[in-house]
């Protein structure tokens, strides 16, 4: 009886602590404008990013993913589009129409040279376009077809095999998509660019590329040179330091530290560029979209996005790079100035943000006020 009572008391204390914590985070005043950008075709906004001229890029799941029938295998096309707007929201153009990798938008980012990078979880690819929209680099390879029958090739029992869209790869030897490991730790992926629903991409000052890999079972960060050649990979499935459980975002600071939104473990892990664990941030809920602002000092933004079946959470945290929470703003909802499954944050300055929402099919411009 006594034990039960103390347990209840302890639970109460924990709840009280959580409440105190919630109260202690200042609310940041903000404006949000959902009317600047009107998509040429509506759909889930998985990614939003700006370039140095204030142009806005939106990578949206729109139209339909198409399965081509009447072939030896079932091929998969379409399903997403990449739009460019000027800073007033006027539509400029579409990039990558009909591009092989454009299937299930997951993220778009603009690098310091204004190149546009898309991350696609359907094709399992990361594609770099130059500012004019020409290919510069392709990472990963799309599964040749979708739908995997038992038999030769990928066993049907492999978890997530169909979600990867991977069948016998070109060549039929070695691995298909990721997720089957390379004989190392479970869910570590192989030493290469076989992504499994990659979620995000970032760069250090030298231009090295870091891919968050991802929503699937790989649970790793893959590092490449600026030319796209493989350097190293770190992480595998788990909850210890340096392990991941569904990586939903990645960002780098000016010093080259890599921040990883380890959503399933409800934390942001920080590494150096070689993958050495440095610290973790655990008081921001389930981080889905993260962003590190330009300017000095830099700030880290992290969205504790709601899931598809609730209106809970939804607030976005502003933190110092060391992890101290500066404040938070917003909540889940479907109205303007509310957030519905935020999957992308662009933060060129600490007060000028764009957020992309999967639930509400829009990109909102967010202005933080003192």
């Amino acid at each position: 009886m006594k034990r039960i009572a103390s347990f209840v008391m302890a639970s109460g204390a924990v709840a009280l602590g959580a409440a105190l914590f919630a109260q202690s985070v200042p609310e940041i005043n903000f404006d949000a404008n959902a009317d600047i950008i009107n998509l040429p075709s509506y759909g889930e906004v998985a990614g939003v990013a700006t370039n140095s001229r204030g142009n806005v890029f939106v990578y949206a799941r729109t139209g339909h993913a198409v399965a081509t029938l009447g072939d030896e295998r079932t091929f998969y096309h379409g399903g997403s589009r990449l739009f460019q707007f000027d800073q007033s929201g006027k539509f400029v153009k579409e990039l990558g129409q009909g591009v092989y990798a454009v299937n299930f938008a997951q993220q778009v980012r603009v690098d310091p040279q204004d190149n546009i990078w898309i991350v696609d979880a359907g094709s399992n690819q990361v594609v770099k376009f130059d500012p004019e929209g020409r290919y510069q680099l392709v990472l990963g390879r799309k599964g040749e077809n979708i739908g995997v029958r038992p038999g030769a090739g990928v066993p049907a029992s492999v978890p997530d095999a169909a979600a990867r869209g991977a069948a016998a790869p070109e060549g039929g030897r070695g691995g298909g998509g990721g997720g089957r490991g390379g004989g190392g730790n479970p869910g570590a992926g192989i030493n290469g660019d076989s992504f499994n629903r990659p979620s995000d991409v970032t760069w250090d000052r030298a231009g090295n590329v870091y891919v968050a890999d991802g929503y699937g079972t790989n649970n790793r960060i893959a590092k490449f040179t600026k030319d796209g050649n493989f350097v190293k990979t770190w992480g595998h499935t788990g909850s210890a330091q340096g392990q991941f459980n569904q990586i939903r975002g990645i960002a780098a600071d000016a010093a080259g530290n890599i921040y990883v939104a380890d959503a399933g473990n409800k934390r942001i892990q920080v590494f150096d560029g070689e993958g050495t664990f440095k610290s973790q941030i655990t008081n921001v809920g389930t981080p889905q979209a993260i962003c590190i602002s330009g300017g000095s000092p830099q700030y880290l933004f992290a969205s504790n996005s709601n899931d598809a079946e609730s209106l809970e959470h939804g607030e976005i945290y502003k933190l110092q790079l060391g992890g101290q929470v500066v404040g938070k703003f917003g909540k889940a909802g479907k109205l303007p100035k509310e957030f519905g499954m935020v999957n992308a944050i662009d933060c060129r300055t600490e007060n000028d943000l764009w957020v992309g929402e999967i639930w509400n099919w829009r990109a909102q411009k967010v202005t933080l006020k003192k």
Partner: protein
Amino acid sequence: MTRRLSAILVALLFATPAMGQNAPAAAKAKAASPEIPFDSAPNFLKLPPGLYMGEGTGVATNSKGHVFVFTRSGETRLFEFDQNGTFVKEFGVGSYGFAFAHAVRVDKDDNVWAVDEGTNVIQKFTPDGKLLMVLGKRPDPLEQTVMLPGGGQYSGANRPYSFHRPTDIAWDPQGNIFISDGYGDSRVVKYDKNGRFVKSVGTRGNGPLQFSTPHAIAVDAKGLVYVADRGNSRMIILDNDLNQKAVWDTIGAPWAVCISQGPHQYIYSSNSFATGNNFDSAATTGEIYKMELDGTVLGHFGKSGHGFKEFSSVHQMDCRNPDELYVAEITQWRVQKLTLHPAASRSTGGR
């Protein structure tokens, strides 16, 4: 003859009533109430050229009498017409939430709500057509791919006039046709120049006249056939009647093969980096070999990589001119034009 025809006619005439045997009885009110005369405006909706109605699943009007039609056409689409039936505009062109129309409604503020039973999404539009709200979430297409058929596995069907994921084609000087077939079969098929089946050889395996993904094929001026037996990391040379003459197994996995033109022909073979593989294998793949037709290796060039002058899974080559090659790559989406300088070849220390 006439009788038989009329029998068919009778059968057809009775088919419809017979099918109606389970129809419900007429509503009681039908006989108990007067019939109301009415007219219908023919072709009320005036669709612009190029727009077509499909199944008319939804219709609603707003306070101005404008008519909204939600239709299953080639794609599901939402059209607005004015009170005269003149086309005004289309809502949500290409929307993620339009796949199988079900209903459209207009609320008291003239917002237009479209209910789509294909995507499980309900969209709320302003009267101007701007999306205001989304209810529901479309099922994740990636989670659904498990339902789709077809991995295209090896069958070994060896049919004379059907292929199973064929890979390449070549011709001898007489115009005979040689096809490497392929992923789903493991064979080489010969046709004459008119497309008549002559012969096929090969099953899956690694023995004589066996292949594991014959991925490319080339024929020289004498009619010898060079088969890139990629999965076995060897080139198999066949005579014109498809008898095995030689095997080359020192040039890695031949993904792409080509033979140059001119009096002195050379053969090129690419040991391409295999897509989806561990990047560690990039160090041991990627180079292209230049050989005499007897298999003597004259040299090699290139390495794996995404960069300029690197090869990212070369999938086909053209070497009409032996010093001017075009290479197509799978994983860096490009074609590179290469100019070789064989006279300047240097030893690479046996690497």
